[in-house]
């Protein structure tokens, strides 16, 4: 691994090895790993945990084939620390875990945020809290992804609904992390991670690649300020070994990167960490609409539950219920603008929010409206069926 840029460093045959172009019948976890490889993943550090283990396994086998590094760590605290280290050395880096490991990673998620070290954390959600039901589905880490580490900071979180989307969003997540210099999450769930479905992998030249911004001045001038943002609030990134003088710390720091322990410096830094995502939310947010144009009942869902929700909406339409689906592809940022626009039409009568937790996304919807927000929940262990969603719609 050369500490230069995060661009894919391999060409020709190696590139063919990285991108397995073709049509596959592939496991969701494997599709996530293949998406990361296609996007130029250089480094993985992790500790295997059900139901994310197949991501580890695949990358342990595949990363060394394409010149990347795979490290099995002693635990998840170290895994998170390792991908931050690799990131500031210039590597595209990623880890994968599930709830118990996700909790252990939270301290260093905050470190990645304040260091502005781009990295991707995959959480394949299982029934929680604690060890919970290790082999069964959950979707209860939604708020933890947003608020899990202490303090205010901006992140982006994606929620794939199929193995194809595991592949696509792994690419998207690595690009977003580099573009905004933030920790970025892929919030899968056990059902999506452990289901096998068709996955189409495009030719290598069609894989989108968004590089990190690099300093405009050459190293050695002594003028480069590693935390001085451009207009988009994101500072260009110099990597260890490139010859720039850089200093990284978890303490509040100035544009030089040196500790500056004042309220004024803190306000400037933390506002920027939040604003670089907040002010770009409309560019980052992703969702899919299904039969929303004339909908009076709006179902909002994500991940495996959105598959049931889509089926339920189709059935509801046949019964004459004017239902539509807003499927969240980004959990964070939350599509507030779109929901407000739907409310402004005056047509919406109610929301229905099916999710495998006790109301984490529902809380976000309730924040935006006085209309009824019906819940369809279980705390984990089983999928929510289309029948149950329709039953709640009819209530």
């Amino acid at each position: 691994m050369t500490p230069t840029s995060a661009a894919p460093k391999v060409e020709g045959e190696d590139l063919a090895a990285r991108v397995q172009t073709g049509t596959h019948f592939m496991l969701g976890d494997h599709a996530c790993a293949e998406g990361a490889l296609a996007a130029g993943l250089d480094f993985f550090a992790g500790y295997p945990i059900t139901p994310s283990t197949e991501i580890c396994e695949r990358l342990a086998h595949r990363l060394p084939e394409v010149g990347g590094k795979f490290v099995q760590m002693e635990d998840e605290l170290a895994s998170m620390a390792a991908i931050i280290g690799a990131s500031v050395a210039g590597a595209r880096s990623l880890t994968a875990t599930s709830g118990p490991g996700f909790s252990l990673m939270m301290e260093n998620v905050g470190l990645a945020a304040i260091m502005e070290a781009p990295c991707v954390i995959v959480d394949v959600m299982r029934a929680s809290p604690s060890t919970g039901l290790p082999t069964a589905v959950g979707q209860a880490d939604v708020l933890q992804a947003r608020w899990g580490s202490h303090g205010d900071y901006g992140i982006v979180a994606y929620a794939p609904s199929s193995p194809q989307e595991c592949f696509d969003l792994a690419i998207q997540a690595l690009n977003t992390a580099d573009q905004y210099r933030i920790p970025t999450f892929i919030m899968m769930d056990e059902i999506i991670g452990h289901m096998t479905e068709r996955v189409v992998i495009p030719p290598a030249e069609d894989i989108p690649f968004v590089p990190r911004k690099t300093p405009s001045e050459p190293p050695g001038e002594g003028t480069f300020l590693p935390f001085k943002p451009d207009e988009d609030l994101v500072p260009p990134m110099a990597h260890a070994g490139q010859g720039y003088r850089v200093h990284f710390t978890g303490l509040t720091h100035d544009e030089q990167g040196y500790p500056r322990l004042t309220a004024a410096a803190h306000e400037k830094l933390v506002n920027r960490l939040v604003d670089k995502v907040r002010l770009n939310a409309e560019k980052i947010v992703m969702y899919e609409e299904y039969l929303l144009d004339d909908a009076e009942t709006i179902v909002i869902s994500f991940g495996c539950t959105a598959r049931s929700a889509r089926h339920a909406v189709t059935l509801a339409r046949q019964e004459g219920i004017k239902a539509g689906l807003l499927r969240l592809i980004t959990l964070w940022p939350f599509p507030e603008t779109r929901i407000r626009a739907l409310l402004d039409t005056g047509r919406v009568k109610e929301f229905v929010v099916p999710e495998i937790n006790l109301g984490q996304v529902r809380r976000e919807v309730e924040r935006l409206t006085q209309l009824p927000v019906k819940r369809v929940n279980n705390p984990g262990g089983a999928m929510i069926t289309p029948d149950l969603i329709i039953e709640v719609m009819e209530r």
Partner: protein
Amino acid sequence: MAPSETVATSEHQIRIGGFGGQGIVLAGMLLGKAASLYDGKEAVFTQSYGPEARGGASNVDVVISDSTIGYPLVTKPDVLVVLFQEAYTRFRPSLKEGGTLIIEEDLVHVEEDGFKYWPIPATRMAEEVGRRIVTNVVVLGYLVGKTGVVSREAAEQAIETTVKEKTIKLNLSAFAAGFERAEQDDLA
């Protein structure tokens, strides 16, 4: 606005129950792959996941549909294949009325209740083909011949693109043995 989808008119839910070592994971994978990649259908493959999937009883599920698959899990199979007694006891009640039940006749005892089922000595047939290890593909051949949930050509393509090259011939023979027995059973 995207048109409303129709709820699939021809959706199949297939469950294969067996014990560790019988190769049911590969059988389910081949079935899903055949449908999804070579028959132009939608297919989702899942397997039971838990401590029991290591050496003990396990099952694999495949949903095959002409349109987008929402809910991806099997709840009421219309095709059930059981390769040992515990799988029969556990899954027989879930089989859809009028569904197809296929059993490994040397390993499963059926309580006769008038329900039509299809017995097949899959393990012995695999031994006759050459190796016991292809029992799963004999079963796949029989399932495909009996139900037509995927085409023979698609299943054979899935075999050719999945198993190790030196075992393709053996696996295709195993598939043919199962498939042809299903054809004979239909004539009988």
